């Protein structure tokens, strides 16, 4: 490829990936709305089910002493006739275990599994699932507040389709104190929510949200359960479950309220972990894509691959900018492809704003007043994407050269609460 060919490819990738994918997600999100969401009852009025099979709710905890009381209290509000709560203390160094024992004395549904030594979230989940007495298991994080109707919606979706082995719920941001928190409300709606909807149309998901998801045990057994060595247990198990032949689906009415980082440092650490974990799973899954059941993951894998190329293309632009005296310096003058938005940059910004408005419109039925959060999404086209691209750039080599043989708990900051 000659220099002008390289320039063209770089410019086309930098502009083309976010531009094309924004439209793709918008259209996919609207299709899901038309085909599935539009004629569904409101999330707080689930229909009566013919049967209410018992459900086990797993709550893995590591140093959650301050949060777990609230988590169990919100599970007590869940409106479902027959469920048990299994809280797993993964060898916490604080008094989470003792706190759980106290809570178990107050909440008859709660059972406690204590790992004598810290073994990682995946192992904690695996032993929690072994303690679980029921076939359907729902999972939330130790700091997540489950919506009272979430279990009903999960069970209803499993009852709809016996081929569904896993479901991802709809995590909503709980803490909105700072710009970082408020921005993520828009991001979870305009990026995460739209992507899940679009992926649901063609039937394969990149990941179930670990903060709120549900599985059939049979499907987890076929997938090989949670893998102790992975960084992002939810992405890993989602890929293996789908490659084992089970379907996954998005159930937006199964909601949970989650705490997210509200500092840039906390956000960076969280997103880097997600990026590293996602890359690790995608790289490891590559050989399986050539097998019959793995082939269904190609669209997801290719999207991941192009997103990585895009992140590195943006890095290349930054290097060109930094090495201003080189021949490539004029790349910055290309219309809008540089860091100072021109025609193409303006188009991307407008596209993102449209994406955010459409996504907030789709999410209005789940959260009153979500349109007001659009005020804060301005940070995404101006600055936040830089953080996302940077975590992708740093996360990939970390995933490739990772030597750690165990997944470890990473507790991000949980925002400003007091």
């Amino acid at each position, binding site marked *: 490829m000659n220099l002008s060919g390289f320039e063209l490819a770089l410019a086309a990738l930098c*502009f*083309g990936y976010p*531009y*094309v994918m924004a*439209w*793709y997600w918008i*259209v996919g999100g609207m*299709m899901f709305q038309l085909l*599935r969401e539009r*004629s569904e009852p409101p999330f707080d009025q689930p229909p009566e089910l*013919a049967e209410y099979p018992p459900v086990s709710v797993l709550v893995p905890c590591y140093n959650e002493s301050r949060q777990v009381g*609230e988590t169990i209290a*919100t599970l007590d509000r869940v409106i479902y006739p027959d469920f048990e709560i299994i809280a797993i203390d993964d060898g916490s160094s604080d008094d989470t*275990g003792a706190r759980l*024992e106290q809570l178990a*004395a107050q909440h008859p549904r709660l*059972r*406690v*599994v*204590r*790992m*004598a030594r810290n*073994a*990682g979230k*995946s*192992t904690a989940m695996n*032993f929690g*699932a*072994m*303690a679980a007495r029921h076939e359907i298991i729902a999972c939330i994080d130790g700091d997540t507040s489950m919506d*009272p109707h979430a279990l009903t919606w999960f069970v*209803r979706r499993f009852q*709809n389709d*016996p081929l569904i082995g896993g479901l991802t719920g709809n995590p*909503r941001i709980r803490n*909105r*104190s700072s*710009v970082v928190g408020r921005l993520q409300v828009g991001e979870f709606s305009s990026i995460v929510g739209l992507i899940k909807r*679009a992926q*649901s*149309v*063609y039937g394969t998901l990149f990941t179930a949200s670990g903060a709120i998801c549900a599985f059939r*045990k*049979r499907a987890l057994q076929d997938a090989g359960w949670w*893998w*102790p060595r992975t960084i992002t247990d939810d992405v890993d198990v989602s890929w293996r479950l789908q490659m084992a032949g089970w*379907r996954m689906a998005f159930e937006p009415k199964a909601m949970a*309220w989650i*705490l997210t980082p509200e500092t840039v440092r906390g956000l960076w650490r969280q997103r880097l972990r997600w990026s590293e974990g996602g890359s690790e799973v995608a790289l490891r899954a590559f050989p399986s894509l050539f097998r019959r059941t793995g082939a269904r993951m190609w669209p997801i894998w290719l999207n991941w691959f192009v997103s990585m190329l895009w992140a590195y293309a943006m890095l290349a632009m930054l290097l060109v900018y930094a090495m201003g005296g080189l021949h490539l310096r004029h790349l910055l003058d290309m219309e809008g492809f540089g860091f100072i938005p021109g025609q*193409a940059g303006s*188009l991307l*910004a407008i596209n993102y704003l449209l994406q955010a408005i459409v996504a907030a419109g789709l999410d209005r039925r789940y*959260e009153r007043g979500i349109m007001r959060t659009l*005020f804060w999404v*301005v940070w995404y*086209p101006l600055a936040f994407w830089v953080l996302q691209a940077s975590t992708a750039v740093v996360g990939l080599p970390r995933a490739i050269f990772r030597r750690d*043989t*165990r997944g470890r708990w990473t507790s991000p900051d949980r925002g*400003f*609460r007091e």
Partner: protein
Amino acid sequence: MKWPPLIDSGHLPRWVVARDAVATLLAWWVLLYYIKDMARMAAYWLLLPFGVQLPTPWAPGDVLLDATPFLKIVALLVLWLVVFAIARWRVLTNRVGAASQPEPLDPRRQADAFGLSDDALSRLRGASSATIQGMDPVTGRAGADTVVLTGPASPVPGQRPE
């Protein structure tokens, strides 16, 4: 407990809240400044049918021309979604319970996957509180040394040990 359990900025100092709002307003101003040429183009096209021809930052139609190759990819991807939507129509729109569900997993098969004995499994499933000792943290599997102790590991006031 209020529901939904949102945590807003009520507990933050007012100056922090004001700072965030002002910074975000400034960010909007910056963004609108950068996309002002797009607004001028939009105004040009909106007023053209009324015989008003405003000056434009770029040649009319330039933006569409540049975006056309990418819009063709968008069209292809939308076609891909439409094909899947049609092929999966019943799965996506189905709201009726299926006639049958998969058989539940036999707990012993599950325990085998982790090397847990039948006795340890039944203790784990039967207990309201259990402690697992001696499992391998690297493989995540139980071994010969694995023990499942039932009953609270720390004393709970008013509760008898199992």
